[in-house]
Every structure is written in C-alpha cells, then in structure tokens.
C-alpha cells in the first residue's frame, strides 16, 4: 500500500488566540500537529503495518510546519514532504485542494490518501473531499472504522459516522478517507523515532515542482478577522438548605426564563 497522509500544523487547542491588525496570533503557545491528523497518521501506520508498503506525510504550509511533519516521521511515517511557496500565502480551500491533488499525482501510484476530519484552525472540514474530487477518486469521509481493506482486490469498506448513525460503505481503491476521533488511539513517537526524524531531510516542493505552472487564484477572500463580542454573563448561583430546595429554585428560574 502506498499511503499518503495529509497533515497540517495548527496552534495548540488550549491557546489564547487573538487578532491584531488582521493578523492572528496565538502568543507563545506551541504549534502542534492538528489533533484530527494524529488519528489519520495513526491509521496510515496501522494499515502499513497490516499490509506493508509506505506512508508519506504531506503538508502544505510555512517552513515551521516541518515540525508537524517531523512528528509524523517520529510516529513512523517513512517520508515527509513540505509544499511551501510564497505564492500560496493567500490560498483558499480551492487552491489548497488543487495543490495537494497535484502533489499526490506527483508522488504517483498512491493507493490511499488519509485526512483528519478537519483542522482546528480554519476548520472547514472540506479539504479531503475537495482533494478527492480533484483526483476524481471516491471520498469516504468521517470514517470511524475501516472494516476491511483488500489491496489486491482493490477495495475498501468503512463505517462513516453520520449524525444519524453509521453508514456502511464499500468502494474501490484508490480512495480518499477522512477520519474522526475514535477510529484509533494515536501512538506517541518512540525515542528512536524522534531521533530518526530529527536527522531526516524533508524535501520542500514549490508549485512548479508539482507541475503547477500557474498558481491558481483563490476564489475566497477574508476581508476581516475579529474577536467575537464578549457576552458578559453574570452567573446567578442558586443556593438553598437542601438539594431539594436548590432544585426547586433552579426549576422555577428555568421556567421563568421560558427556556423549558
């Protein structure tokens, strides 16, 4: 199995994020591998362990995103590639999907591409499906379980987590899969893995390297980024001598507020 796992570097989910002059800042909070992508990397590694082959971690991002790729390497990916091009600074999802699809084509002979469900920064959740569309491969999104995978028969069967329950789907390879939490428990990188990753050279591809002569123009722009207005809620603490008294007061207040 030749597997590509697309990953992104994001600020830590605990970061305090602010905006100044239209620029987003997360102070000195660390940058991490997008938490959803950890599941994708883990799943890629498990598939490789079961069926042999290799796993390539692919990221489009600034040079700092090398760190996220190094974590993927430390977890056990065979190779990593960073796509970095100043021309991609304003990339919107349409551009990102075009670039990633071109890179996957350039890697060549790929059987399976894995994504996390979304990223914790922009959180559009459409990168995987859009890349699939560009490649003209089937997309199996929100996958909570890969129930069977047959590299020779070229088929994959999954359980997708919809709001209404699980949808069981079978499709051909190559395919694009996006995964949700619960599909696995991501491993921690081993000491050996970290050592190996720190020594590895991660190639940087430009848009020209992946055969895009012209950088596509984004369709979307974001004229404004701002902090939401803080709603000051004064918490009314409900007290009483006994739980029953507290409960009665709270129930009365909820009914007065017409929320129930």
């Amino acid at each position, binding site marked *: 199995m030749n597997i590509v796992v697309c990953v992104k570097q994001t600020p830590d*989910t*605990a970061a305090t*994020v*602010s905006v100044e002059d239209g620029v*987003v800042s997360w102070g000195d909070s660390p940058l991490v591998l997008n*938490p959803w992508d950890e599941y994708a990397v883990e799943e890629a590694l498990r598939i490789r362990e079961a069926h042999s082959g290799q796993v390539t971690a692919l990221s489009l991002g600034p040079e700092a995103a090398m760190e996220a790729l190094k974590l993927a390497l430390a977890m056990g990916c065979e190779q990593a590639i960073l796509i970095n091009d100043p021309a991609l600074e304003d990339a919107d*999802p*349409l551009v990102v*999907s075009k670039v990633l699809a071109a890179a996957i084509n350039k890697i060549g002979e790929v059987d399976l591409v894995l994504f996390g469900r979304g990223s*914790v920064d922009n*959180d*559009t*959740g*459409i990168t995987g*499906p*859009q890349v699939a*569309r560009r490649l003209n491969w*089937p*997309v199996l999104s929100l996958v*909570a379980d890969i129930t069977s995978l047959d590299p020779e028969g070229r088929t994959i069967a999954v*359980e*997708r987590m*919809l*709001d*209404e*329950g699980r*949808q*069981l*789907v*079978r*499709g051909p390879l190559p395919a694009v899969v996006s995964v949700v*939490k619960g599909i696995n428990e991501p491993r921690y990188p081993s000491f050996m893995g970290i050592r190996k990753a720190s020594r590895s050279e991660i190639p940087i591809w430009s848009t020209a390297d992946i055969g895009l002569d012209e950088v596509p123009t*984004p*369709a*979307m*722009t*974001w*004229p*404004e*980024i*701002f*902090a*939401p207005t803080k709603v000051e*809620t004064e*918490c*009314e*603490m*409900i007290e009483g001598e006994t*739980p*029953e008294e*507290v*409960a*009665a007061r*709270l*129930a*009365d207040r*909820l*009914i007065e507020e017409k*929320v*129930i």
Partner: protein
Amino acid sequence: MANKIFVYIDHFGGQVLPASWEAVGVARSLADQLSSGVTAVVLGHEVEGIANQSIEYGADQVLLGDDPELKDYRPELFAGTLSHLAAEAQVLILPTTSRTRELAGMVAVDLETGMAPDVISFEIDGDAVLATRPIYAGKLLTKVVCREKRPQIITLQTRAFPKPEPESDRSGEVVRVEVVIGEIVTEVTGYKPSEAGVSLADAAIIVSGGRGVSNNPKLTPPNEITDEKEQEIWRSQQGFALVRDLAETLGAAMGASRAAVDAGYIPYAHQVGQTGKVVSPDLYVACGISGAIQHLAGMRTSKMIVAINRDSEAPIFKLARFGVAGDLFDIVPALTQALKERLGK
C-alpha cells in the same frame, strides 16, 4: 424573475433535517433582498413529499431529482447532480450536516468557486454575500466573501438562523430533473443506528455529563466487580443514569465531555467540543464538567448554560447563567423531580 437563490434540502430516512428549513428561510430572505426567487433542490428516492414541503417553507420552485440510485446519499452522485443543477445559481445555500459539508465542498470544486461552511450570519455587499463564520473553535470570527466566481456557496451553522413557519397555501412549481449518474463507484451496504440516539446539533436542550458523573464515593459497586476501572465505569453508569433521567424529563439530547468519553463512560457520538460536536441549543446543562477551553469550543454559543459542579471555582461558571455549586448526585435527581412536578410529568 429567475430563481437564482438555490437551497439544498438535506434529509435522512424520509425526514428533512430542521436545519434544511432554516436554510430555506435564509434563502427566502436573501432572494427577497436581491429581487430573485428561491429554487430548492431535492435529491433522493421517493422524496416528492419533501419537494412539496419545500414550497410550504418558502421555495418558489423545486428541482426534484428522484431516482432509485439516489436512495442512499453518496457524495459523488449527489455532488455531480447538484453541480449540474446549480451551475447557473447566484448563491447556493446548504445546511451544515454530516452530508452537506462535503457536498458543498465538492460542488465548489466542480464549479471552481468559493465555499464557506458554518456560516452564522451574513450581510449583502453589492451582489456578494459577506458571510461570518467561526475560526479557531469560535475564539475568532472571520468575514469571508467570494467576489467573482458564481455561485457563492455557503453552509449555515445549525440553529444559527430561525426556522420559518410552513404556510400550506404557498404555491410553487415542482420540476422533475434528470439525475447525473456518472460512474458510480461506491456502494452503501447498510446502516447502524446512532449511539447518541438523537442528533445533538438539532437539539433545543442538551444535558451533558463529564468526568464528575463517576465521582460518588458513597456508591459501592457490587462485589463481583473487583477491577478498579470497571468499578469506575459502574459508578459512571449510575451517574449517567441520573443525567439521562434529567435529559428525558426535559426532552433533551444527552452530551458528554471528552474526559467522560475517553474514560469509556459513554460513546464518542455524544462528545461535545472541539473534537466532538459543535452545538448551540437554547439550554445546555453541564453536570460535572469543568469547562475546559476545548469543551467550551463546542457549546459556548448555547443561549443559556446551567452548570452543576462541586467546585464553585470551576471555569464553566464563567459562562453559565445559572450555577449550582454542589454534588451532582444530590442536585441532578432533585432537579429531575422538581421539573417533573412543574412540567406535569
């Protein structure tokens, strides 16, 4: 007047998701402002009733793709057909559901246009829709716009817009359309019901439990349970039973924190937060949940938050309208009882 404001109606098992009607309401007001009309797109099998309902909710015209091949949602098939139908639209509006997010993204690729998911509000700027959506788990908001390409595609966050009232005397036209079958590559082999029972996103009231639901030292597990982890799970089941009683009394859906999910108290389908569901109910009751930033990311836009927590310093109280600093094992059953009396149950 061309009906250039398109709205996609998402449904499952013959039922339209309420978020779809919210989307029709938005399409209606947008069409009125832009002097256009509303075209609803209904794709599926044996869904004519849904087409008629769409008119009652505000569509002027319905494009109905009814085909046995569309019995199950499959992204390639639905995207192919929707792209074909919506190519001439000015705006394409969808609810945000586990089907439509990707659907909108794929149509955007087909039509080489922009797409903004999870939109919570918008304004009209010329003939463009300037949409506001949360980023960084709602810590920031961004305005996004697609100036040149058409259609502009947006998906609306569930419960961010009001659901219109249906009017049975509204009239409109249902047009049957050809479905673009293309090469069908995937096959739906079955379904398993949701572990969460109901959809959290649509729920008007959610009662959630956190790690605190297993924390009642007064409860003694049966003798045959000797393993410490199993004792904890047993305790959590007692706690969640109380949470469930409260939820049922309120007609609410049941949510959970990640700590409760990861500890094995309750399936992941219930998880609220950054790596779970993002919800926005009228009332959110947090029982034994501390209020970590990643949990708040999933429920901070709830209209009213009630927190029940032993620790009066817990961060959840900062967001709560009402708080009880107390033991959930005392407060939750008492609250269920008090509500039952008042609601006549």
